[in-house]
């Protein structure tokens, strides 16, 4: 698959982000889509491919007035949008369509017009997990953490430091939800949600969305925006049940997806100038750094505490502030993609000077799925 020949030419988040009870979820999709079209000078008439999650592609295409020749409704949680990018690149390369719109909109906080898919009591998770009282992601996603701590010798302070450093990035971003500095003690003194994690180690809950527009690299220079090329992509899934994750210290889906994206792109870890790792909870950057091969197992916490991912560090990570401090709609992956695109365009609030390669890694469900994209601002 020749994914090197595809580029992002349109990208935008929703006009507003935060608490938006005056907008329904599908309007958040549309607001982001209209912004992304305006970004690259297109209208709905120019779009012939639609990919989305949260809404069906039928709903989104119809609402926007598009009758596409290609759709993708892959909905595997927050990394669905990374996987849409991967599938869109393949579709464009195969000639199935020319101009793909990928949308995310989620009324995660206000719940206006939100489609909530709750697994049935007869599903495997309904039979073998829900009866024991997990209450959504805060009780399920951190399930591996205590095991990780025992196996790797990690501490509560290690997981607190993730939130502290991401707040440093958020402080540089006017659009971030939180800006005030926090300390490890602040994190460890915040309200207990589900031990071992406290409030400041759990993501925000916001309304918002984002959209991307992809075309072949050949056409990319026809647009007013700086093209952001796709060098490599990966995807995988593991289990719908956190209890059935094979290894509580490593995500199989992360490893498959990350290796695929690095392999396709041909880059090495030292080539990466900027990194996004979907941080619904404070352990995810640690798992991501290890499973993508930036750190050996058990070493990511020290890597973060050593300020390698902090402002001024060698691997700037989650530079928008992340799901912990920027925004988190529910399926945050689109926001990670938007920050990678901004960094590659040179327009990020906390811009990494000279950055040429950005890796954007997403998770879906509770370690259920994964998608990874390697971006560059240099034509491959």
């Amino acid at each position, binding site marked *: 698959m020749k994914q090197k020949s595809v580029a992002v030419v349109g990208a935008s988040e929703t006009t507003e982000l935060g608490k938006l009870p005056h907008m329904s979820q599908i309007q958040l999709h549309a607001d982001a889509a209209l912004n992304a079209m305006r970004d690259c000078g297109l209208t709905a008439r120019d779009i012939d491919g639609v990919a989305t999650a949260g809404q069906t592609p039928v709903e989104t295409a119809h609402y926007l007035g598009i009758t596409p020749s290609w759709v993708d409704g892959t909905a595997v949680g927050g990394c669905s949008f990374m996987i849409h990018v991967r599938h869109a690149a393949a579709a464009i390369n195969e000639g199935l369509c020319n101009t793909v719109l990928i949308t995310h909109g989620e009324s995660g906080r206000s719940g206006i017009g939100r489609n909530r898919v709750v697994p049935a*009591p007869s599903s495997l998770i309904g039979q073998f997990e829900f009866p024991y009282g997990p209450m959504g992601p805060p009780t399920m996603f951190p399930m591996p953490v205590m095991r990780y701590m025992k196996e790797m010798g990690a501490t509560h302070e290690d997981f607190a430091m993730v939130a502290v450093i991401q707040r440093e990035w958020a402080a540089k971003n006017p659009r971030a939800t939180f800006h005030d500095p926090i300390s490890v003690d602040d994190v460890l003194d915040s309200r207990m949600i589900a031990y071992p994690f406290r409030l400041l180690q759990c993501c925000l809950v916001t309304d918002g969305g984002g959209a991307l527009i992809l075309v072949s690299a050949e056409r990319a220079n026809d647009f007013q925006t700086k093209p952001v090329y796709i060098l490599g992509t990966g995807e995988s899934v593991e289990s719908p049940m956190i209890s059935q994750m094979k290894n509580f210290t490593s995500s199989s889906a992360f490893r498959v997806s990350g290796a695929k994206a690095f392999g396709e792109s041909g880059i090495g870890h030292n080539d990466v100038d900027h990194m996004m790792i979907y941080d619904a909870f404070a352990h995810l950057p640690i798992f991501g750094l290890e499973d993508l091969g930036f750190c050996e197992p058990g070493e990511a916490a020290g890597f973060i505490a050593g300020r390698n991912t902090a402002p001024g560090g060698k691997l700037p990570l989650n530079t928008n502030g992340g799901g912990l401090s920027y925004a988190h709609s529910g399926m945050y992956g689109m926001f990670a993609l938007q920050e990678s695109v901004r960094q590659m365009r040179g327009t990020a609030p906390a811009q990494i000077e000279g950055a040429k390669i950005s890796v954007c890694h997403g998770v879906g469900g509770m370690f259920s799925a994964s998608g990874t994209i390697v971006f560059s601002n240099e034509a491959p």
Partner: protein
Amino acid sequence: MSDYLKPLPQPTPETQPFWDGAKAGELKLQRCGDCDHVYFPARPFCPACSSRKVDWFVASGRARLHSYVINHRAPPGFEAPYVIAVVELDEGPRMMTNLIDCAQTPEAMILDMPLEVAFEKATDDIFLPKFRPSAGASQ
């Protein structure tokens, strides 16, 4: 109707033997007749080798605490804080459960501590496998 407020499992044809076992006080698992793989949750084929030659058997009911969270926000029917655990059965598979007959505190949750199954009645037909620290077991 039951006054049981917690989520109830709804068995399917493929999982019914597991729930029938639980009602009879037995923790039932499946083993592959071709590759000996023991697995959970139930399905009528082996997820390791795709063989349909699989059989149910009664597991020991012994397990060890693999990991856990302690939920501080109780949904209906639960009293916070309460432990949601993943245990590793002696036969290999892991399952989510609650830990009973012990304090719901980090201090009481020693990873890898030995546990034994106990079935809690939810309705006349549904008994949930839960786990308690093994009697007289040492670390």
